[in-house]
Every structure is written in C-alpha cells, then in structure tokens.
C-alpha cells in the first residue's frame, strides 16, 4: 500500500549504483523536486532510464544529474537535447544504451507486465539490427529486445489519493508505463486529495503500482517554473 513520505526519506530509497527510471519527456512533466533531491544527495554511479535527456540545452531537470556526473549509464532513445551528456558519452564517462523510442517504451512495458521480450520490425535494415537478436515470426524478420526494469521509478502525476491512485493533468508521457516496471515506485504529485475525490474512471495509474508519494510543487508553482523556462528559451 502507498505511503506518503518526505522528499528526504524518498531519496534514501535510491543508492549509489541504483537503476532509476525517471518519468516525463525531454524535461516536460518530470518530477522536478525529486530530481533536485537526487542531485543534492549526490547519489552516484546511477543508471538512469529515461525516454530522452533533459530540457534542451542541458543543466535543467535530469541535466542537473549530468552536470554533477552522477550517471554512469543512460538507457534512452534520444540524448540530443543535452550537450553535456553527449560530451560525457563521447568521453566514455557515461555508457549509452539506445533503442528506438517506441521500442524503449515497449521494453519497459514488457518489464512491468511480466513479458519475456519485445519483438518489433522497427530498426530492420539499420544498425539497430546489431543491438538485438533477429528472429523470424510467420516468415517475417523481427528484432527481439529484452525487457527493462529498474530498482526505483520516480514518476510525476497531478493528483494522488492516500491509496496511491494517480490522476494526470496533461500528457502522462512515460509515467504510467514506468509505474509498472520498478521494484520501488515513487510518485511526485502537485496535490493530495481524499479517497474518492478522483473518480474511478479518471484514475490514470491505479494505486497498486505506487509505493511512495511525495508532495511536489503545486500546479500553479509548476506552471510559473515552466513559463519562466519557456520564456527564457523563446518558446512562449
């Protein structure tokens, strides 16, 4: 059953050498406060599993962990937004494991859903063929990728009730699938509500997948943070 804890308590669930999934998409809809807490705690040698790198230009959200050199392996589909991360990969300070974006997501889904592999035609005829085993199904060639799981998933949702039921506000991105695929799932939320306040049909991730709840910025605070970032980078 889900338990609400402080950020300081939550960050103790992550250790040196832990593998950590981080929800969101290139900086949008990421668990900002938990990422800050991981950066402050200087937990090192992390394997970070995230659909892409942090916000464009680097140094923001997951980019803070890059600046601190806390990451030894990055499992992802895209690193183009963070020049600092690219530099560390080129210098072999960070090991890179790439999959096409749809394959990356399905590998996590497989990891969370008890499946043994992902079998996909995407990447055939490219150097992605070298990253997977080739198999034939009904006469057609496919690539077989192994599932991905993590020690800890740190995800982001809008609202949460004491049972850990989550409601998302906009795009839920990778958070729902990551919630299924880690030994410990920590969610950062904008607000806590009572049981029953999120109608059952509006629950995006059921509480069965959630272990720990951490209060993040309020929705309004988060909007201010993002608008300042977007204005500073000429996106709004």
């Amino acid at each position, binding site marked *: 059953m889900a338990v609400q804890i402080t950020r300081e308590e939550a960050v103790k669930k992550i250790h040196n050498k832990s593998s950590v999934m981080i929800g969101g*998409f290139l900086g949008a809809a990421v668990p900002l406060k938990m990422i800050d807490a991981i950066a402050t705690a200087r937990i090192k040698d992390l394997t970070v599993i995230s659909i892409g790198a942090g916000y*464009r230009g680097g140094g923001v959200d997951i980019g803070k962990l890059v600046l601190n050199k806390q990451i030894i392996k990055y499992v992802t589909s*895209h690193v*183009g*937004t963070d020049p600092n991360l690219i530099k560390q990969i080129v210098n072999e300070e960070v090991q890179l494991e790439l999959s096409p974006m749809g394959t990356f997501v399905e590998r996590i889904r497989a990891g969370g859903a008890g499946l043994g592999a992902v079998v996909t035609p*995407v990447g*055939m005829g490219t150097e992605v063929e070298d990253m997977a085993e080739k198999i034939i199904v009904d006469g057609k060639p496919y690539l077989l990728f192994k599932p991905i799981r993590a020690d800890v998933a740190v995800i982001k949702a809008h609202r949460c009730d004491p049972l850990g039921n989550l409601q998302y506000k906009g795009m839920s991105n990778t958070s729902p699938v990551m919630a299924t695929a880690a030994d410990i799932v920590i969610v950062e939320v904008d607000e806590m509500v009572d049981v029953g306040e999120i109608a059952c049909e509006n629950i995006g991730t059921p509480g069965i997948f959630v272990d720990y709840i951490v209060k993040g910025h309020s929705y309004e605070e988060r909007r201010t943070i993002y608008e300042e970032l977007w204005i500073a980078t000429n996106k709004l």
Partner: protein
Amino acid sequence: MSRDYIAKRIAKEFKNGMYVNLGIGIPTESANYIPEGTQVFLQTENGGLMFGPKPKRGESNPDIANAGAEPITMLPGGAVFDVATSFAMIRGGHIDMTVVGALEVDELGSIASWKIPGKLLTGMGGAMDLLYGCKRVVVAMTHTDKHGNSKIRKKCTLPLTAAGVVDMIITDKAVFRVAEEGLYLEELAPGVTASEVEQLTEATILNIMQWEHVLIT
C-alpha cells in the same frame, strides 16, 4: 524564402481527415499553411492528438507540450495519452502521413537522419518508429547540403534511419515521387530548370528526359 516554399509545398499534401505527425523544423512550420476547409489531425509522439498553436502566457499547462518540450494547446476534441498508446498509433499503422527532415535520402527510398559517425550523436528518438509505421512518408529538406552536395543520393552514405520507406521528397528545387524502381521528378520549384535539378541530384532521375527544356516560372 526556400524554407517557406518547402513548408507551403508540404501543406498541399494535407488531405481532409488525415492523421499526421510532423517532424521538427520545416515540417512543423507547414501546419501554418493547412488549406482552409481541410481538417488535419496533428499527432505528437509524446502523447497528444489534435493539438493547436502555442498558448498565451499565463494559460499554458506544464504537462501539455510537443515532442520538443515546447508549450502547445489542445484543440476541442483533442486527446492526451501515454507514450505506449502514442507508439501504438505510430507503429501500428494508424497515422496516415509523416513529414520529416533528412540528412540524405536515396533513390531506393532509404533515409539517413539520425547519426553522423564521429560528428552527430543524438539517438534516433521516435524517427525509426514513425518511418516504419506511418502509411505515407514525405521527406522535406534542402536539395543540397551547405557545401552544395546533393542530399538525394544513389545510395545513402550515412547510417540509415529506415530502409526503403520514403514515398515523396520535397526540396527547395523540386518534388520527387519515389517508386519501387526509382526516382521520378514530379514538379520543379519556380524558376528552377530540369537540367539544374539533374545537375544537383546524384540519384538517377528516371523520367528526366520528359523534363528537358521545361521552365516553370
């Protein structure tokens, strides 16, 4: 100038009721030229269908963004979802058309857009899934690179993003159809001659003879 021309030319490919995913750069700009009376449902791979323009300051939602993490709005009837659902749309063949940029395209319809060994390291992102799964693939790019070299090759020299998937190429000089047997010139940009296109194109243009002496102004 040529950027606008390419974006406007892409927009002619939009047909009423199409579900479309647009790549960053010029393809995204083509949404500004969707013909009046044509409804196109724009998909973004981070989890949105039927999105609209940028929000006003103070009205954004920090969780509603495009695939470049830039703020967008959702139109009435639009939907947001998780990335697994998004790639079921993309890989599963539910998207009618994708328009993407490229470093190179070849006469076999292969495309290179994600990697320059020793120079460009970004990862493929969702490009491979989009190129594999979308029913129609349109490449929009400048005809030549900044050194004047043809980006339409006999065979791509850079690592492929997908093999044999491109249906159409739109450049600042011309429009090509990519058939199983090779490349056909379909249109010339204003003021461009067929012989100029032939000169700037490394790939073989199968129907170039039909275009000799044609000048579109």
